[in-house]
């Protein structure tokens, strides 16, 4: 290998790698963070290619590895990847739907050096949970996997995506997550990109429901102090300031898709003007530091008003580029979740109308066949 090209001083080294090992998934959650265009199994990177990606990431300064998908356990080589991560001292976090993971498989992953397990749940009520996941019996399998994790003494996070169709159950969901043995609970309001955006009118909670969910989490934090940690992700539709999406574009996180495309965030391919390089034809270090896609919105030089002169521009980095494009038509605009955005009032009105409509539309489940329907305009 030739000496690595130096990284310009203005570019910080990345700390996290989100490895989307596959887009295959047995579940069909209508807020899936995968793109509408799902990559096929035939295009997935090989074991050797992923191991090479892990090496490059570790050399680049990455400390944390998120093994995600789709359903990452659909990859039969997952144990090898976990073992390699451990060898390179990468902190490995397996983000799974919990479907189809046997006790033996989890034991093998733990023996390979897996540091932490994260299981998503759709609700505490099994019937509603299976309805949201789109697969009968999914909930029971998650419960079983949590039991295997407890038996193996493997640290567990329960992630609960929250939306209109389960938000009123939040207190019970938290209690359920704690009963599963979670030492960390993520209460994550759905973010409205891709599949989530396509289903926004069915999923966006009311402002009142969001306020209540904040209160429920505050009470749980108090009740479980020193025993369970809580992370809360708010839905930004009711915010006054945008979230610092990905901690800023190209500042800390690298996302690699199943086929090896390198993205600044998992939704970045929704910006059609950007060209994304692949680990199959360019070194990761070079992509991170010098590629067009990573430099497009890195830092603040690309900003227009009101971001350019904003005192918070290095706190929230203008919010989310994908959301700016989807809702205002220009990825370089301020994220319309910001009160300073000219589109903010319009978005607030839209959120009010959609979240309070008496008859929310049917869910569009995440399947390759429904992607075409999900692409219809929503803004």
């Amino acid at each position, binding site marked *: 290998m030739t000496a690595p090209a130096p990284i310009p001083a203005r570019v910080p080294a990345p700390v996290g790698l989100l490895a989307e090992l596959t887009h295959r998934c047995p579940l069909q959650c209508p807020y899936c963070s995968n793109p509408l265009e799902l990559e096929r199994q035939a295009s997935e990177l090989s074991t050797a290619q992923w191991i090479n990606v892990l090496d490059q990431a570790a050399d680049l300064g990455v400390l*944390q590895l998120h093994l995600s998908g789709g359903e990452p356990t659909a990859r039969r080589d997952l144990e090898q990847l976990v073992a390699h991560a451990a060898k390179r001292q990468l*902190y490995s*976090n397996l983000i799974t739907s919990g479907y189809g993971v046997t006790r033996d498989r989890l034991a093998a992953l733990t023996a390979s050096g897996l540091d932490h397990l994260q299981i998503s749940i759709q609700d505490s009520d099994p019937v509603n949970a299976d309805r949201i996941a789109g697969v009968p019996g999914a909930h029971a399998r998650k419960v079983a996997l949590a039991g295997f994790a407890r038996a193996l003494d*493997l*640290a567990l996070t329960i992630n609960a995506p929250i939306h209109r169709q389960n938000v009123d159950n939040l207190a019970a969901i938290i209690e359920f997550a704690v009963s599963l043995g979670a*030492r960390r609970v993520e209460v994550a309001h759905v973010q409205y990109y891709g599949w989530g955006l396509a289903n926004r009118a069915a999923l966006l909670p009311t402002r009142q429901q969001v306020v209540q969910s904040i209160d429920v989490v505050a009470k749980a934090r108090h009740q479980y102090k*020193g025993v369970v940690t809580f992370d809360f992700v708010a839905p930004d539709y009711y915010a006054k300031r945008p979230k610092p999406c990905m901690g800023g574009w190209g500042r800390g996180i690298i996302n690699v898709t199943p086929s090896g495309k390198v993205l600044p965030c998992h939704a970045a391919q929704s910006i059609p003007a950007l060209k994304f390089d692949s680990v199959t034809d360019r070194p990761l270090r070079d992509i991170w530091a010098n590629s067009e896609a990573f430099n497009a919105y890195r830092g603040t030089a690309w900003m227009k008003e009101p971001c350019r002169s904003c005192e918070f521009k290095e706190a929230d980095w203008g919010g989310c580029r994908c959301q700016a494009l989807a809702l205002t038509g220009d990825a370089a605009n301020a994220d319309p979740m910001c009160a300073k955005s000219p589109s903010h009032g319009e978005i607030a009105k839209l959120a009010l109308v959609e979240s309070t409509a008496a008859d929310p539309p049917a869910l569009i489940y995440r399947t390759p066949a429904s992607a075409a329907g999900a692409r219809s305009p929503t803004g």
Partner: protein
Amino acid sequence: MTGRERIILTTHSQPALARHVKLRMDDTRQRWVLLAPERLLNPSDTAIAVLQLCDGQQKVEDIAAKLAAEFDAPAAAILDDILPVLQDLADKGYVTA
């Protein structure tokens, strides 16, 4: 570790890093880091010195005595410094005892 009670550390506790927490040198940035799910901490020099001694064997008072010798400071003062640090880390699930 799957206990449902808050751990209260005393001078006799024998703290250890939780199994899912990793303390390592970050060569790229030349500093120690504490890694946990979705968390990346840069502990203070004091916290790092303490964490390196959290092996599940030594008591908090032993750790304080060692640090007192190393930094030439009164053990009682060190104890006052490190107990809240360890309690905070235990409350976040990073340290068990």
